[in-house]
């Protein structure tokens, strides 16, 4: 087993939170290639009780989901989310970057402050960049913690994302007769999808 693989193994093992490749390279001696070591390490852990999982542009070791029955003592009670919070979260995940007004349009009701606050506080969502539409409203995007929590490698891996897009349900379709929204809003969204998740998680 390569020395670099050992190092990556030790670092990922010791950390409860995902570690980026950049961080790995930083911590390993000069000249190491964490990315390559990760490929080998990931393979080595296939089918084992512990996995090497990708979380956005970071990596983490996680127990295999099929062994959850062993973990009663470790199970953490997550705060139960309200239906409004769950829907809001899903809308942010699938439509990101999305403004509050857009969330409200999709849900047909106004978004309560508490709902957004709760999601922000859980660090499942964060502010994205402002939209280039009048008023330059802030947008919301999901975080690495969100991906980590739901075991997603990236926001591209959201369940049913492709189908929704194919069905046009992620389109920003203005109501008939309404002023069509500036193309820029659409551009932001397309950009987020095209450039992938690294874009969503940068600062």
């Amino acid at each position: 087993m390569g020395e670099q693989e050992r190092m990556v193994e030790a670092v990922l093992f010791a950390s409860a939170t995902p570690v980026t490749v950049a961080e790995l390279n930083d911590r390993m001696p000069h000249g190491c290639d964490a990315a390559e070591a990760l490929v080998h390490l990931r393979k080595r852990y296939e089918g084992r009780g512990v996995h090497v999982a990708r979380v956005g542009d970071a990596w983490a070791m996680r127990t295999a989901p099929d062994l959850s029955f062993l973990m009663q003592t470790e199970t953490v009670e997550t705060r139960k989310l309200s239906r409004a919070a769950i829907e809001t979260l899903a809308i942010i995940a699938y439509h990101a970057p999305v403004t509050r007004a857009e969330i409200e349009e999709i849900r047909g009701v106004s978004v309560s402050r508490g709902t957004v606050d709760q999601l922000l506080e859980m660090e499942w969502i964060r502010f994205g960049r402002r939209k280039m539409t009048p008023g330059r409203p802030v947008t919301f995007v999901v975080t690495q913690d969100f991906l980590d929590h739901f075991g997603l490698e990236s926001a591209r891996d959201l369940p049913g994302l492709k189908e929704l897009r194919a069905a046009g349900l992620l389109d920003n379709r203005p109501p008939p007769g309404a002023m069509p929204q500036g193309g820029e809003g659409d551009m932001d969204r397309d950009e987020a999808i095209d450039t992938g998740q690294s874009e969503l998680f940068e600062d």
Partner: protein
Amino acid sequence: MTDPKTDEMTEQDPFTPEPQSVADRLAAEALIVDVDGFEGPLDLLLTLSRTQKVDLRRISVLQLARQYLAFVEQAKALRLELAADYLVMAAWLAFLKSRLLLPPDPTEDGPSGEDLAAHLAFQLERLQAMRDVAARLMGRDRLGRDFFARGESQQVERVRAIRYTATLLDLMQGYARIRTRDEFRPFVMDRDKVFTMEQALERMRGLIGFAGTWTDISSYLPEGWDVDPVKWRSATASTFAASLELVKEGKAELRQSGLFALIQLRRTERSRD
């Protein structure tokens, strides 16, 4: 897998759209409005549309509008407080209904009834889609419930080390500084050979009272300052300057008989008064 996956989303369908009499159903719905409430008119419309049991894209918006209006009527009859947005939606649906029923007026501007209906169907479908994916999301294996992070995480220790350095030159300069400190002091040493005018003046003020007769000012030099030529020069100059100062103050008189002759000093007669 195990039961903790009971989902927050299962409550999204608060009642089953069983074929019931319209009256029964409306009563049930009214009750729900009273107890739980819907999350707005769109939510209510989505719930109502489920009774049509068709793809949301092929839903009859006309039928939906009728159901909604009937619901609002029923709610009013039960004297339930309805939020303004429910009533706004009712008005809008009544308008939509008329548009859908009447043949299109070619002179009229704006979107057709079909366009509006299609958009409503889109909105309902989109909301339903979001609810579906939200349920799928919540149903995923989740951190801390289905898979777990390292239990005993080792914090990365942040060590801030301060490394002090010095060069050989620093060392040499430091040492030279100590060893040559005495050579920086010669200023002070040099001062030892200087007899300042202030010192001379002070000395002469003490002596002038006794100088009733003409006396060579060189006799006023302090003791021991007449041997070393450097000290002699300094003491002579300052004594002469001090003498001039005393003359200026009117306390003494000076005289010199010729070039390079002795300079003599005596106290003024007036100062004795």
